Every structure is written in C-alpha cells, then in structure tokens.
C-alpha cells in the first residue's frame, strides 16, 4: 500500500518537474514571441488558480482577495526595482513575503471568530481589496496614483531582457505552486484543511488546530500569489493601480478553480488552462461583448452540469492512479 502511494506520489512529482523542465527547455527556444507571452500568462494563471485553491479550495473559505495578493507582489516588485538595486531573486522573495505578511495580518484577525466564515469571509477579503487599492494609490512610495514605469528599471537586467526569461521564472513559480498543492493533497496538513471544509466544528473537536492551519495556509497561498505577481510587474512594464487590482483577477481565478474542480489537486490547473484557452479563442469571434456573455453562460452551465468541475467529473478510470494518494491523506 505504502509503496503504491509513494510510487503515485513520485509519479506526480516527476510529472510536475518534467513538465516544467520541458516547458522551460522548449517554449522560449522554439516558440514565437506570442507563444512565449501567452505561455507566461498561462503559467501565471495556473499559479494563481492553484494557489487560490490551496487555501480556498481545500478549506472552503472562498477568498475574493487573491487579486490583491497578486497585486501586492507586483507592487512590491515595482517598488523594489525603483528604490533599490538588489538582484531579482531578492525582489522575488520580498514580493512573496509581503503578500504573505498581509495575509497573516488579515488572517489573524478574520479567523479569530467563527462568524467570519462562508460568504462573510469572501466579502471581508473583498473589503481588504478596496482598502489596499486605496492605500497603494495614495502612497507615493508605492505608486501615488501616477503609476510606476518598471521597464526603465528592469532594462539591462537578466529578467528584463526577454519574455523567455519571464516565462522561465513564471513556470518555476507555477511548478512550485503545483508541488505545494500536491503536498497539500497527500499530507496531513491538507487532510486537516479538508476536514475544516467538511465540518469545522468536528475538525476542531478532533484536535485539528484550525486557527493555526487557516492562518498559515492563507499566508502560503497569498505568498505564492505574490510570487506570481513579481514577474508580472516586469511583463507589464508599466504598473498602474486600476489595471493591477482589477476585480476580474479574483473572479477569473475562482472561475478557473470551480471549473476545474477542487476534488483533485490538479483540478485548478485544468480549469486555468481551459479558461485561458477559451478566452483566447473567443477573441476571434469579433464581438467582445458576446464573448464575455458566452464565457459567463458557459460558467453557469458548468456549475449546473458538472458540480464537481471538470476534474471531478472525469471517469474514475482516468484518475485511478491518484486515488490511493488521496486515501493516504486520510489515514
């Protein structure tokens, strides 16, 4: 039994690492600029969807603040590039840590009371978004409202020299997020989170330290989103509050995760891939409003017809290999 789990797990880890290595090796060298740029956005969405699901999917606390953590990463990067000369690795760490710190502060407050569960939690995270937007747009150190021209600062550095390099960083972040998501799906940590989703009261009575788990996972999830925000700052070149903190980001991320399904760790990955590809295909139909309407309608239909998302609705034979791993989590 154990051997089988380990083999399945090793397969998954190998799969993630293999895909990442393959992507890094092939996409920037063989792909056109469009493929690389699209690929970069693609892996960024994957990282976002997986990191959102890591906390929200597992624990059932749906956050509308994921766009904020992503944006905080972007702005931390812009600020670091503008005010300091440190190498990009340091910038990356700061981006992730800033987002995680914000999540810890919010998490410590919000999770202290069982009142803030369900939709109330969602709206508090939404409120956090509005507050962060106001703060960033009013602090000249971060933005002050005029936007930050990052391209000037990044020019000449390795990371700023090509989209291919951004793609490499983005892919590494996505792969790292996937590994964390995988870890959550097979570890006691993930099982504890899922027990919170099923019934928080019971989980607590069984001795799961729910408060600590929630705060920590929220922070990890936010930190990963912040990491994903770092290369985004350089990709954009010009960082502006209105564009960085749009409500579309958390909505799309939630949509991706729900579409992909949360019953398997790789569900959000499938969801992100489908949404990104469908959006790109819809660009061709010529009527942007119509494509938005179609996207919304498809979303409603999927919720109606596939309540467990795409991954949850695949026949078991396709996913049997993963089954022992999930059981293992409940030992």
């Amino acid at each position, binding site marked *: 039994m154990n051997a089988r789990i380990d083999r399945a797990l090793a397969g998954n880890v190998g799969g993630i690492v293999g895909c990442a290595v393959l992507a890094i090796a092939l996409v920037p060298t063989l792909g056109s600029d469009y493929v690389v740029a699209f690929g970069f956005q693609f892996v960024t969405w994957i990282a976002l969807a997986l990191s959102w699901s890591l906390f929200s999917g597992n624990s059932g606390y749906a956050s509308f603040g994921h766009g904020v953590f992503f944006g905080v990463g972007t702005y931390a990067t812009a600020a670091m590039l503008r005010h300091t000369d440190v190498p990009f690795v340091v910038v990356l760490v700061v981006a992730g840590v800033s987002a995680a710190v914000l999540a810890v502060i919010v998490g410590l407050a919000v999770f202290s009371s069982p*009142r803030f569960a369900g939709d109330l939690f969602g709206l*508090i995270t939404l409120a956090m978004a509005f*507050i962060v*937007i106001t703060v960033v747009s*009013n602090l000249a150190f971060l933005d002050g*409202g005029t936007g930050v021209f990052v391209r000037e600062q990044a020019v000449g550095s390795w990371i700023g020299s090509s989209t291919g390099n951004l793609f490499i960083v983005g892919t590494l972040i996505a792969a790292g997020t996937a590994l964390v998501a995988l870890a959550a799906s097979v570890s006691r940590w993930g099982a504890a989170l899922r027990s919170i989703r099923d019934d928080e009261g019971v989980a607590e009575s069984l001795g799961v330290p729910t408060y600590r788990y929630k705060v920590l996972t929220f922070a990890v999830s936010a930190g990963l989103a912040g990491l994903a925000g770092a290369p985004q700052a350089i990709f954009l070149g010009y960082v502006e509050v209105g564009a960085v903190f749009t409500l579309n980001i958390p909505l799309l991320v939630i*949509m991706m995760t729900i579409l992909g399904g949360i019953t398997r760790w790789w569900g959000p990955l499938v969801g992100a891939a489908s949404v990104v590809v469908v959006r790109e295909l819809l660009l061709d139909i010529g009527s942007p*409003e119509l494509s938005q309407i179609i996207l*919304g*309608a498809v979303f409603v239909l999927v919720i109606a017809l596939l309540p467990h998302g795409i991954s949850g609705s695949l026949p078991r034979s396709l996913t049997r290999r993963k089954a022992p791993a999930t059981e293992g989590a409940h030992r």
Partner: protein
Amino acid sequence: MSVSSMALAQTLLNGALLGCLFGSIALGLSVKWGHLGVADFFHLSLTLLGAYVTYSLVSEQLWDPFLTLVVTVPAFFLIGVGVQWIFLALKAEAFTALLITFALFMVTESAVSMIWSPDLLNLRPMLADSFTTSLRLPEPLPQLAVQPVDLLALVCAVVMVGVSAFALGRTRSGRAVQAMRQDSEIAQTLGVRVVPLTLAVSGLAASTAAVAGMVVALRMPLSPSLPLQWIGAVVVATMLGGLGRPVGALVAAIVVMMIQNAWSLWFPPQWSPAVAFGVLFLFLAGGPAIRFVRESMTARRLA
C-alpha cells in the same frame, strides 16, 4: 481646513440622501442574502438594467419615469423568480449561488454595453427644470438645499424599506419567511410552502431593483460598469445593517454615506473609499475584540 457648520450640515444631508439611494439598492440584497441565503450580486446588475430600461422608455418613448415602473416592476419580478428557480433547480449552495450571480453580473454588463453602447447616457437634460433645480429648505435653514431627485430617492427608500419591514415583521407571510430562514424543515411542517415563498421573495426583491433603477436613471449618468462602483457602499450597508433587516440596511447606508461625506469634507477625499470598509472592519472586529477583552478579564479575575 475650517468648515462652517452649514457646510457640514449640507454635506451630511447630501450623504444621507445618497445613502437613501444606496439603501434602496441594499434592501433587495439584504433581503435575499438574509432570508434566502443568496448574496446576490446580480441584484446590482438588475438595478443597472432598471436604470437603462427607464432611460430608454423615457428618452425614446417619452414616458413619464414613474410610468416605466408599470413595465419594469412586473418584468423584474419575473426575472427574480426565474433566477431563484434556477438556484432551486440546481440545489445551489450559498457559494455556488454567489458565483452564478457573479457570472450573471458579468453577462449583464456585457449585454447592457451591447444593447445601449458603453458610452455615457444621461437622462438629466431631458428632465424638466423644475425637477433638476435644487430646492431650498424652508426657514430657518434656507442655506441648505436639496434636489427633487434626491427627495424622490428618499421617498422611494422609505416606502420600500417601510413596506418590506412591515411585511417581514408584521404579516403572516413575513413571519413565514423568517421562520423558513431559521429552520426550513420545521417551518414546512407548520404549513409554510418553501418553494413558492422563496420565489415570491426573490421576485419582490428584484422588483425593488426596478424602483431603485428608476431613481438611478434620474440621478446619475449611466455606464455599464456602474455596479462595480456601488459594490462597496451597498455591501457594507447590507452587512452593517444586519442581513435581512431592511431598516438596518437603510440606516447603515445613510450613516456610512454621511461618515464618508464628512470625511471627504475634512480629510483628503482620495481616502474615502477606504472609509466605508474601515467602518465595516471596526464594526466586525469590534464585536469579537470586546468579547475577547471581557473574557480575558474574567479569566484573570478567576485565576
């Protein structure tokens, strides 16, 4: 910056009246959220849709704005019933329903922009001067002014909230709605028919969006992305007022807008979007914090 007391009174008055408009939008959201368990963001889109339909009927058919309600109220009732029926048919949980309403929110924005163009539409030039000229308050406060449309917002808000509060608290069906929210199973054994009641509540809540939409059309220039700007004030009012409490939602909307306006008068207005949410945070955090302090003090005394 020194501010005269009249300026303060005027800004508070304006805030209160704008609060009435947001309160009438929050009313439907509060009722649906509190009593049907659906945090219905589509309600904001419906309000926008109501405003656009009013705009079209008034500007193209030259209808009296109040006459448009004859069309929009029943139509919105049916939309409300339809949407709730989908939730019932899907057996949608609260979060699923929330997501569906967000999808509908997105769809409506695009549909409105497709039908009416994304450009600004403004009904104001078509309104009679007597309706757009502000009125001075009678003695002894002639320095204060109000707009007829704001008074209309006030009247609509008070009437709708009053009727809703009365219906919920004082009528048999209203009590049934409350009972259904608290324990649907037992309410059923007492003869409460959940499905028709739920559909009716949803329909009525949607109808209030038609009225609020009419006020919006008379009050401000329309653009498809307007609901995004309402979310903050409306959600804060709904939550501060207590879910499912019409009077609470209205009072909270008025108070929040008054605070926000007073803030903008004294402090940099660019921080004002954070004010409403700051109030909400204080309110939400205040409860547990007070309890925590009280508990830890008791614990120390016991120890």
